[in-house]
Each structure stands twice: as C-alpha cells, then as structure tokens.
C-alpha cells in the first residue's frame, strides 16, 4: 500500500510547505489523495492538466499539486475553466469548489456550465458551511442547524447539489463521502473519463467550525456520521422511503451521453466556414 503515498508524492509540489494548511482531520486532504490517484489513472501528462479552484478551504488545494493551477475569485472558478477549456480543448480541466463556492455565489455559473455541457469535471467538497471565514451557514446547511450566522438555528432549506447538477444537465453526477475514500477514487476516475460536464459531490466535514457549534464531535465522529447516514444507490433502490428519510445516496447518480460543448462549437466553425451544411 505504501505505493499510494509514493504516487501522491510524485504529484505534490515539494517547494510548498507541508503539512498542508487544512485543519487536522479535514476531509479535503483525503479528497486530495483520491484526486491524485484518479488523475494518475487518466494517463494525462501533468502538462495537460489544469486544476482550477475558487475561494475557500478548497481554494487552497491546487497550489499543492504539480499541474497548471489557477486559484480564481470566489464562485467564478467554472467561468475561468470554461474559458480555458474552449481556448485549448486538449487540456484536461478539473474544477475544485466548496459548497458555498459552487452553489451560493457560484450557483448561476454552476447551472449554466452544466446546461452548456462544458467538458470538465467539477468536484464539490460539501461540508455544509463556510469554513475558512469561520463557520457561517451555506446553501447546503440543513434546516435547524447552528452556524455563526444562524445562532438561533437555520430557517432555510438546503440545496441538493447532485440533484441540482442532474436537473441542470450534467452528463455524469456522482456523490461520495470522505469516509468512503475508495469510492471517491472510482467516482473521480469515471468523471475524468467522461466527455462533458461531470460532477462529483463529496460529502465532507468541518469539525472545527460546524461540528463544534452543533456538537457533532471530532472529525472521526463526523466521518462515522457519514458512514452511518449514507446508503449506496443500489441498496437505496430496495429501501422504502421511510427508511431513506435521513439518509443520502452515494455512488453514480446519473451517467448519460451528450455531445460536449467544444465538439458542438466545432460544428459552428464548420457552418461558419461553409465546409459543412447545417
């Protein structure tokens, strides 16, 4: 098994200070390991991979890895990534976002990137909170939970990021948790192999802010919560709605075929040049 870590070291930027900046036990580190293993499986050379991130704890991920990396403004990672992919389609573009980054300030860009089927993978680390800024609630914070800005408890209802992605038109949507590290490997591998807009939602935890305020215990206990409240898509199919009440599904939620944006736009170029009739 040591080869896993040996592999990870091949992809890290060793002129960056390690250990990395995230809190002890944060799920982003686990997700980073899975990301590197999945990228290694794609066979792409490091030169052809672009890692784009927004602002937040997840935003600090690309600086640690040896790819073309871009740390954009809050919520706008997908727009920068769209520009990169369309300007140089051979690049493999992977976008890392947090829940606030992707579906709060970035919500408009998220649904449109999905609708357009831009050929890239959006990886959303969903820990139900704005961690970096100290624990405010986010669009995925469950109803009734506490945060530094809902101290009397949250009266808003949360998004389901994966369903949002499915409805908006993503061709591949998978959900995993940082507890199920092996599942993350396979979900990301499938997403990277997919042509079109693929989404991997990763349920993670923020024990430092959200866990403490809601008495959910340490990172370990929050990961145990993930283990006990998740159910695979296959198993869920046999379960009654009642049993699924406080559970969320993990695994591949949708996997369909749609032409990617750059291939469609290549048709526009042909029509424009008259080399092909509509």
């Amino acid at each position, binding site marked *: 098994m*040591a080869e896993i870590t040996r592999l990870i070291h091949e992809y890290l930027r060793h002129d960056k200070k390690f250990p990395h900046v995230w809190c002890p036990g*944060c799920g982003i*580190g686990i997700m980073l*390991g899975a990301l590197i293993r999945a990228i*290694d499986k794609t*066979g792409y050379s490091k030169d052809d991979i672009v890692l784009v991130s927004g602002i937040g704890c997840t935003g600090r991920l690309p600086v640690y890895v040896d790819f073309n990396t871009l740390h954009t403004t809050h919520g706008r990672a997908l727009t920068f990534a769209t520009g990169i992919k369309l300007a140089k389609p051979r690049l493999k573009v992977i976008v890392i976002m947090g829940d606030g980054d992707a579906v709060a300030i970035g919500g408009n860009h998220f649904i449109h990137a999905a609708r357009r089927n831009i050929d890239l993978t959006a990886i959303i680390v969903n820990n139900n909170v704005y961690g970096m800024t100290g624990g405010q609630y986010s669009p995925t914070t469950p109803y009734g939970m506490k945060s530094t800005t809902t101290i009397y408890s949250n009266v808003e209802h949360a998004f389901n990021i994966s369903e949002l992605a499915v409805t908006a038109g993503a061709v591949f949507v998978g959900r995993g948790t940082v507890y199920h590290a092996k599942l993350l490997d396979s979900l990301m591998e499938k997403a990277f192999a997919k042509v079109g807009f693929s989404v991997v939602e990763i349920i993670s935890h923020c024990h430092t802010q959200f866990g403490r305020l809601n008495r959910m215990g340490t990172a370990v206990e929050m990961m145990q919560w993930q283990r006990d409240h998740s159910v695979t898509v296959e198993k869920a199919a046999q379960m009654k709605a009642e049993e699924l009440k406080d559970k969320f599904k993990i695994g591949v939620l949708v996997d369909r075929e749609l032409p990617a944006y750059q291939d469609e736009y290549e048709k526009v170029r042909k029509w424009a040049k008259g080399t092909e009739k509509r």
Partner: protein
Amino acid sequence: MAEAQKKKEIPHIDIYKAWCKACGICVAFCPTETLARDEGGYPYVKYPEKCINCGWCEIRCPDFAITVEGKKNGKKVRDQFEKEGPEKGTAAPGQ
C-alpha cells in the same frame, strides 16, 4: 514454522510525524485496532502483528503521513512493486 512465517509477514507501518497532525482518523478506522494514540494524540503501532495491510489508514490519512508496506518483508515487496510498475494500468489519455 507458522510462528516464524507469521512474524516474517508483519506489514511495515511508517508514521511520518512531521506531517501527522494527530487527527486520530487512522487509529479510529483501523479495522483490527493495530494503532493506538499516545498521550499527544499521535498514532503509534500498538499491535504490529494485528495489521492485515488493508491500507485503510493510508488511504484515509488527510496528510499522507502513514504508509503500510506490503505483507512480505520490505525487500520482497519492493520487487513486487517494480514488477507491477509497468502494467499499473495507466490508460492512454482520454480513454
């Protein structure tokens, strides 16, 4: 004979304390409770012989600070690793 064989097969666990942040995840999720936490909260190998080399700790460590070498003693594993190297299944780009 079984005794000697079992001793030889103990997987080699490395804990890289410079990167370890004592989050306790590896200890908590080790299926055979091979690991335990010292007073500083850092993991240490309490029952080496219990380790079944499942690699759960290595794959869940957020800081890549724990590794588990294969079943055989160090040397044999390295040959196996090299042998496996080329066919590690690196698919061609975009496949």
